[in-house]
């Protein structure tokens, strides 16, 4: 999947990634890479502004955490509004995928 195709869905992917628990920016990037099997070909730096956008929209909250070793990290977590938004996006995506799938099935014409 190229960056352009993923662009409109990046926020949803991030919300889904953080559904499993709070994480810092680089951990989100790694998790996206792992769960997509490396298929999402996007500049990794674009994840950080997306995290910032979701935070400004109130869907994520962030807090600084000092690890036992190394630099302190900004850790992001879903807010209640973020969970609701993810639920809505999940439903929307399922409907969209079903509708497009109806066209792409062999012999669907």
């Amino acid at each position, binding site marked *: 999947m190229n960056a352009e195709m993923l662009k409109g869905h990046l926020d949803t992917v991030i919300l889904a990634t953080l559904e499993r628990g709070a994480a*810092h*920016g*680089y951990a989100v*990037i790694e998790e996206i890479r792992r769960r997509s099997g490396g298929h999402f070909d996007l*500049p*990794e*730096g*674009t994840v*950080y*502004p*997306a995290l*910032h*956008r979701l935070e*400004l*929209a109130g869907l994520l909250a962030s807090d600084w955490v000092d690890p036992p070793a*190394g*630099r302190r*990290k*900004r850790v992001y977590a879903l807010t209640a509004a973020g969970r609701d938004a993810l639920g809505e996006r999940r439903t929307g995506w399922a409907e969209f995928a079903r509708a497009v799938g109806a066209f792409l099935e062999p012999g669907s014409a």
Partner: protein
Amino acid sequence: MSGDYGRALQRELRFDRELAERAREDLAEYLDEMAAAGLDRDEAERRFGAVEDIARSYASAALPARLRQTLKAAGWLALATFLFMRWRSIALGFDPFAQPTLLSLIDGVGFLIGAAALIVAWRRRSDSAGMRAPLLFAGAAIAVSTGASLLRALPALGGPDGVLILATGAVQLGLLLWLAGRLRLIGRYRRVG
């Protein structure tokens, strides 16, 4: 923190110090993690993305929130304009039933147009692209109304209310200049984003 790459990113986002600082922190975290994973800096920067693309993403991410802040500020400006306009009318004994003059018409109608444009901007608050034009229009209309209101009060400047006229005028002009600065800044976000 990367040298050239980090500086270039800061330069692209220099119009918003807070955003530039956020980008600096994010890049530092990323480069630290990549260095810990054994990747060299050039490769890490390549994977982070082109500076212009990353700056564009940050500007686009911040734009809706900055527009909402500006809308809120414009609302306070409109409220201050209305209260000061009313106060000057009462203090200076302007007769609301008298034949309107050109200045009183510009004062009142300009404010109403500005308030209407603000309502349009508020209704478009979820559409960043559509919100800026009514905000600009509201700012211009309120500026014209403020100018007319102050010109109406000008003859009373030497009287007992002169200081208060000057003070309210200064507050309104200050708010207008601040709003103009915010709107100009939003233009920068749009150019980068």
